[in-house]
């Protein structure tokens, strides 16, 4: 009995291989995109974790100074009070060609050090010049820098990290007596005095330095996850459509099986089993797909993470059991979710009665009411979440609420629009078209929601990226005002260069900075010369009166937007730059693409407090037409390597390249999502196809040609897609606004102005219409060539 039923059920797929392929492909696509994102995230996180493990012990609780200035004396005071802590001084530093993370630790108290079987004299490591430990790739990237301490290769360190003794770090970073944080060791003696008593200016945090990389990149991964989830949701619409179609087409078979005595329970179980098997198949395929997509995208992601955040991520991908399990789980869960409606209908299907022609919309009025209520509720919930939860999570909850709420609102809104259109319709065909559209709405609404989400995301993310790009290029023009940027190998060479350039260039602007901690986080303190280049070009977003004069007099400090937002340092606030050095904030400037805090003071002021900051980078002002010749002359005179002299245009191009890189993945997922949404409409229309005939046949019989009906069929889909696109526009713009004003600020620390790109909307609108037309093309073609006998059967046969 069951074997016979199974054979009967499966025969459907033999006859409809295309449908089977669509079902599996849809689910595989959904699983694949989701899995790809998961794989990328897992790989990146594993890299961070590996890095953390390699650095050793740096994941435990950490003490930091509330005001950001942690001194050696604080460490000693804690030690003298009995607290077992270990000091770390860390900074980013240009070592050779790259800026690397220099981690200085006190080997005497540091819980674990890398290296295996190395026989090094302690004196070599602890006493000047010291030694730098790094993995072989990093050592190779540092190159042959004579100034630096000897490098020791060790495989125990993550790429991009240079470990050294804290004394060496202090010298290299030129931050005598400074500490970044204190690691609280696990083994503490009994009866310690409370921390608040010993070190009131310090605070205990649970996350070590390594999690800074995780924190910085959190937003990036959250973005990816959101996109992955969106792709998955959109993919499920396909599955829903196809599964619905398969159920609908087998309705007669189900009824026959039931009539032949197969219990409804057994039938439901059989169908569930079938769904599960298909889901597992599709899930496996999806995993393969996801793996390929992830492998293709990972190098870009790794480049982005490294370039933007300095977070080390390997370009290689490893298979993780958890990843496989989660992918299969999503596939099965998704299939059940998407097939639930069909299975339920089978379980409840009466043996005999024929369904109404509007059966799909069965409780559609009630469903519409629910949606009309649920949509605003979700949107309000999102707003509430932003208010209550706040932060990045709140921002994403708001986004989720907005998108889902708007999706739920779509069918009632479309219904209302169509009803309005119906009252205005003049021609009988238009009237029928609109009435027909309304009748079809429940069956298409899921696909349309998918389209809405895809379009709105496209508009939102597109607007965000384009606004960012526009702002960024404008900002680059301001920020990179010098025609040439030169880096010398040593301070001596730097001084020679400056002297040599003085009579040859319009101005030589030293670019000098000290690595420090500002407001409790690593930051760079720049010293600038008082020059019109800054006064005219620097991109200030908030400033006191006479901001430049105050900075030039050493009476004010400029901070970048990230630092201003994180620490609430707006003009008028006081900022501790170093012990005993406190200046009011005179202005805030935008500083995109930089995860770290930054501050600018007058160069003489910087030199008073940090006499030894390197003097190796210079911006050179010169008439643009003479820039190339001067660059060549410098190169000849100082025998500098090619990349030591960068013309403004090249630097801008490099910066833009990094920028574009950041959004490669976003763009790829954007396109994929839209494609999947188009596919969802197609499958929905195909599903509805079987139910179209009773709607179309009477109209045909009453004197319309099949050609006209086919045209209307396409028109119908285009109208729905167009209306959805129209509704997607405001939603997308709201999305963009939230991305720019909430997510960006939380994730990156900068607020961007929003620009509108109507041409992009037009393109997307056209794309939506095209998607609608393409999706309807196949059913329309079928209708056009349907033999009259097939249409006539509607009037004679029971379905």
């Amino acid at each position, binding site marked *: 009995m069951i074997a016979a039923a199974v054979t009967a059920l499966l025969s459907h797929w033999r006859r409809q291989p295309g449908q089977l392929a669509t079902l599996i492909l849809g689910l595989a696509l959904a699983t694949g995109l989701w899995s790809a994102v998961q794989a990328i995230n897992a790989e990146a996180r594993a890299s961070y974790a590996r890095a953390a493990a390699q650095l050793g012990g740096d994941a435990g609780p950490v003490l930091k100074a509330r005001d950001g200035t942690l001194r050696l004396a604080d460490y000693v005071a804690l*030690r003298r009070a009995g607290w077992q802590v270990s000091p770390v001084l860390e900074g980013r530093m240009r070592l050779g060609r790259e800026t690397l993370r220099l981690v200085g630790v006190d080997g005497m108290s540091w819980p674990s*050090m890398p290296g295996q079987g190395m026989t090094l004299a302690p004196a070599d490591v602890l006493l000047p010049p010291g030694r730098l430990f790094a993995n072989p790739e990093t050592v190779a990237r540092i190159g042959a820098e004579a100034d630096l301490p000897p490098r020791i290769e060790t495989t125990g360190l993550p790429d991009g990290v240079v470990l050294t003794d804290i004394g060496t770090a202090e010298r290299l970073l030129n931050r005598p007596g400074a500490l970044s944080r204190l690691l609280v060791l696990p083994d503490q003696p009994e009866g310690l005095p409370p921390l608040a008593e010993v070190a009131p200016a310090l605070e205990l945090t649970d996350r070590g330095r390594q999690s800074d990389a995780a924190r910085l990149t959190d937003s990036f991964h959250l973005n990816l996850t959101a996109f992955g989830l969106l792709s998955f949701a959109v993919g499920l619409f396909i599955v829903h459509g196809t599964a619905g179609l398969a159920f609908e087409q087998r309705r007669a078979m189900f009824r026959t099986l039931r009539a032949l005595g197969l219990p409804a329970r057994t039938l439901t179980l059989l169908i569930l089993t079938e769904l599960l098997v298909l889901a597992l198949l599709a899930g496996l395929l999806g995993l393969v797909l996801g793996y390929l997509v992830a492998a293709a995208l990972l190098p870009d992601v790794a480049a982005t993470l490294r370039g933007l955040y300095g977070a080390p991520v390997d370009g290689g991908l490893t298979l993780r059991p958890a990843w496989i399990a989660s992918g299969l789980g999503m596939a099965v869960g998704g299939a059940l979710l998407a097939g639930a409606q069909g299975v339920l209908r089978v379980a409840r299907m009466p043996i005999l009665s024929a369904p109404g022609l509007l059966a799909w919309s069965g409780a559609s009025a009630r469903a519409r009411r629910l949606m009309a209520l649920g949509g605003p509720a979700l949107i309000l919930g999102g707003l509430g979440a932003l208010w209550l939860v706040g932060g990045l999570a709140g921002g994403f909850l708001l986004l989720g609420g907005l998108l889902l709420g708007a999706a739920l609102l779509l069918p009632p809104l479309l219904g209302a629009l169509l009803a309005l259109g119906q009252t205005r319709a003049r021609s009988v065909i238009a009237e029928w078209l609109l009435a027909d559209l309304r009748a079809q709405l429940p069956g298409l609404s899921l696909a349309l929601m998918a389209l809405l989400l895809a379009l709105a995301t496209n508009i939102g993310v597109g607007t965000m990226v384009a606004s960012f790009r526009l702002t960024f290029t404008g900002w680059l023009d301001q920020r990179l005002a010098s025609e040439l940027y030169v880096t010398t190998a040593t301070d001596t060479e730097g001084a020679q260069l400056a002297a040599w350039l003085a009579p040859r260039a319009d101005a030589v602007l030293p670019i000098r900075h000290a690595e420090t901690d500002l407001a409790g986080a690593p930051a760079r303190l720049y010293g600038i010369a008082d020059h019109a280049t800054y006064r005219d070009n620097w991109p200030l977003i908030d400033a006191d009166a006479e901001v430049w004069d105050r900075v030039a007099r050493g009476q004010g400090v400029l901070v970048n937007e990230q630092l201003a937002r994180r620490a609430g340092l707006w003009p008028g606030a006081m900022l501790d730059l170093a012990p005993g050095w406190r200046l009011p904030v005179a202005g805030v400037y935008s500083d995109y693409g930089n995860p770290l805090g930054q501050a600018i003071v007058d160069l003489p002021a910087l030199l008073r407090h940090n006499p030894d900051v390197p003097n190796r980078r210079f911006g050179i002002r010169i008439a643009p037409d003479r820039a190339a010749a001067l660059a060549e002359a410098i190169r000849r005179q100082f025998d500098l390597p090619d990349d030591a002299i960068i013309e403004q245009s090249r630097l801008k191009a490099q910066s833009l390249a990094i920028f574009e890189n950041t959004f490669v993945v976003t763009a790829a997922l954007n396109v994929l999502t839209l494609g999947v949404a188009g596919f969802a409409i197609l499958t929905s229309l195909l599903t509805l196809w079987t139910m179209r005939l009773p709607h179309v046949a009477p109209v045909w019989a009453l004197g319309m040609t099949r050609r006209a009906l086919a045209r209307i069929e396409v028109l119908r889909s285009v109208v729905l897609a167009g209306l959805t696109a129209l509704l997607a526009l405001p939603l997308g713009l709201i999305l963009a606004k939230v991305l720019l004003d909430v997510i960006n600020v939380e994730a990156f620390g900068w607020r961007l102005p929003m620009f509108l790109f109507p041409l992009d909307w037009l393109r997307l609108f056209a794309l939506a219409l095209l998607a609608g037309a393409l999706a309807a093309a196949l059913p329309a073609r079928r209708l056009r060539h349907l033999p009259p006998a097939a249409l006539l059967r509607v009037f004679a046969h029971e379905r």
Partner: protein
Amino acid sequence: MNARLLILLLWLPCAALAQGFAGLGTDAEGFAAPDPAYRLDFPKDHGPHPEFRIEWWYLTATLHGADGRDYGIQWTLFRSALAPYEGEGWSSPQLWMGHAGLTTPDRHFVAERRSRGGIGQAGVTGDPFRAWIDDWEMTGPPVGIDSLRLSARGREFSYNLTLNADGPLVLHGDAGYSVKSRDGHASHYYSQPAYAVAGTLDLPGGPVAVTGNGWLDREWSSQPLSATQSGWDWFSLTFDGGARMMGFRLRDSAGDYTAATWIAPDGAAEALPDGALTVEPLATSGVEGRDVPTRWRVRLPSKAVEVEIDALNPQAWMATSFPYWEGPVRITGSHSGKGYLEMTGY
């Protein structure tokens, strides 16, 4: 795992100790050598000697608790120099390590502290005397070391003791020049063996008031062991009659080297040459996977001493960066009393 290894290789203060105590016999290039002509100068010599490679302030005390039980404590500050000078801040080549032990008849507590020199986390001043690492301290009066306050703290224990000297400083060897091998390796070595101790031990079971005898050893050198020596057995014994004895055996593949100092009840010291003292293990205990002699026969015929030494707690293993055995002992035989035993290289 690899980290541990590297700590040992890279970071150990007294890195020489890390390579086994034989490491003390490595080359002392650039460091000052003990000078037999040097006359100890107090209070200056209570303080550190950065030009020497290694140095220690080593205090042990046998204690009797108000609860009727016997205890022992150890407080040691080691100094190890990477280079023969002191410097400011992290660039100081001086490294410090503290060891604290507390022995009861059935438990043995150990703690270790490490520090760089030059930053104030650890150090010693001679005048007034003050030795510290983290919150462990041994502080003297405005002048000299006749009275000390001593404290240390570990995960499950702490102690706070006051010590008052009941006799003069004792200079070992030739006026404090103590020879360690037949090749002439030597150290500067003096002691205050006659502290009366009182104070409190904090144990997991609660505080215990204690009294007893304390013994401070001060020693510095740059190369005290010869290359063939593999470890030592060191005894500080306080006999009931008031006499005291310090004696050690350096185990050497080329023949052991022994030395002893006899301290009369009035504090007068007499150095006894190589071979005057003989020590003989009578029984070993399994400690941390090794066989460590915890019963000894000690003979000093010239002073009619023939005693058996028994560990109060055979498991007094100092599980520190470089492990060794250190604990209180009971004395029976020709003399009775209490003392401390230290054994390295097992």
